[in-house]
């Protein structure tokens, strides 16, 4: 196991999270099965007290867990400095067979945890707490990927062998690679850009028509297309290298940590759209989420588009 201070921090936090999550899980099952707000029985009053306690436990786990994703990426980047061959977090992700699965699981979980937090905050705004059963049901579902994530994380850090040579991102994210990721390079750039800007156009359209479901669905596709276009096209302009497609290197100091801004914009923009689509909100809150989502999606598009535009203005050619 690689025991850097950052890894130890993550491991200690994982142990604390696991302990509290198990307590919250047991209580959540009880609340989910027995919750009946109309009842004035002793057991219901007890459940109401327990639901407040349990929701507070879950809230604090997730409030730390969501931003901890950035710290996880930062840690991978830090580990890359001691792994032979690794240039950035991509090499660390590929250093063990667990890295890619962990990353995918973390991305899914981060949306799920953030969704839970919003659901909880909306639930607390209503006197009759209409989402109580839903939010504890969601936690029961989220508990399993949450625990699996913690386990894989520990296993991954344990499996990293500093004496072993790993691949660099230039190899992993290239069209000549034999990995599954190389499939995305078979998409033609004009088609990919049409899909990217076309999808954004649909988001704008659904925003003005205020069609919440289509708006949310368009945003789900936007996450996927954005990540692919970032790797295949936009990333190369950030690096100003036509062969460099890594989605991690621009998180480093050399690129002014712009990757964090890019991913935060994309996450907030698309996540708020999911809230609009799938949570029944007060009209005022819905409007606020629409606006935040649109703003961050717009900022994302402007930011990633600025790199090729500036490159073209400076050099008069495309990569």
């Amino acid at each position: 196991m690689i025991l850097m201070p950052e890894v130890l921090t993550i491991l200690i936090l994982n142990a604390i999270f696991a302990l509290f999550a198990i307590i919250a899980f047991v209580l959540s099952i009880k609340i989910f099965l027995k919750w009946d707000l109309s009842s004035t029985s002793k057991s219901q009053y007890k459940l109401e007290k327990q639901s407040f306690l349990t929701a507070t436990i879950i809230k604090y786990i997730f409030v730390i867990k969501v931003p901890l994703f950035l710290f996880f990426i930062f840690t991978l980047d830090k580990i890359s400095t001691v792994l032979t061959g690794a240039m950035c977090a991509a090499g660390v992700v590929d250093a063990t067979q667990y890295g890619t699965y962990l990353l995918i699981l973390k991305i899914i979980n981060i949306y799920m945890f953030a969704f839970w937090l919003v659901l909880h905050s909306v639930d607390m705004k209503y006197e009759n707490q209409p989402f109580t059963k839903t939010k504890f049901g969601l936690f029961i579902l989220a508990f399993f990927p949450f625990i699996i994530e913690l386990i894989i994380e520990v296993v991954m850090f344990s499996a990293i062998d500093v004496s072993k040579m790993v691949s660099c991102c230039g190899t992993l994210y290239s069209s000549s690679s034999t990995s599954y990721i190389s499939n995305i390079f078979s998409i033609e750039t004009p088609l990919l850009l049409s899909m990217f800007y076309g999808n954004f156009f649909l988001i704008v359209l659904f925003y003005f028509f205020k069609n919440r479901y289509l708006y949310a669905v368009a945003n789900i596709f936007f996450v996927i297309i954005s990540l692919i276009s970032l790797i295949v096209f936009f990333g190369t302009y950030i690096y100003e290298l036509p062969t460099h497609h890594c989605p991690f290197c621009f998180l480093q100091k050399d690129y002014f940590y712009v990757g964090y801004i890019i991913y935060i914009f994309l996450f907030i923009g698309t996540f708020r759209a999911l809230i609009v689509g799938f949570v029944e909100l007060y009209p005022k809150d819905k409007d606020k989420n629409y606006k935040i989502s649109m703003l961050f999606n717009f900022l994302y598009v402007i930011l990633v588009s600025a790199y090729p535009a500036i490159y073209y203005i400076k050099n008069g050619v495309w990569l």
Partner: protein
Amino acid sequence: MINLKNVTKSYEINKNNKVTALDNINLNIKEGELVVLKGASGSGKSTILSLIAALSKPTSGEVMVDEKQISKLPDNFASIYRRDNIGFIFQKYNLIPTLSVKENILLPLVPLNPDEEDVKEKLDAVMQRFNISHKEDAIVRNLSGGEQQRVAIARANVNNPKIIIADEPTANLDEKLSIHFVEILRELKASNKTIVVATHDPIFFDLDFVDREIKVHNGKIL
């Protein structure tokens, strides 16, 4: 207005030590009514008040105020309910001793963020009504017991609440001041407030303006 239905409240100190403060009680108080809850210490009077004020929740049963089930309110909504509906008068006044009379009275208005003119209007009205205007800037800890009680009453009324709750309001007052408090209560009753007083002070018994006296004993209404 206020309706307690099959309310039980017990406090579990530990597994072998459980105190039943209220035992399946039913109580109905109409709007504008002045009710005196009388009984010995530990009989459950204060527990009834804390349930009506949503300061605590029953172990079982319903507490309804204006057809609203306040015993089921989440904490943040219970605070709003208290802010908008309840005026408290406590035995020990519960004033902030380092603040002035004016500042203490204005405390319930702080969360409402009212405009200055409105604040001044309410403050002047309430200080005049309870005869405490001349002490406006005095620090509360320097006031006499009777004056502190008047500040507490002014604070309880500054929001113009529908319900006034008084828990042993004369316990720290001498006889003269207690009589004065009774007069204030008469005036509050005349302004159509619903008032619930928990006391074992005989000064409140057999008053002509009290609508009902209810005896509470060992967690039961007799």
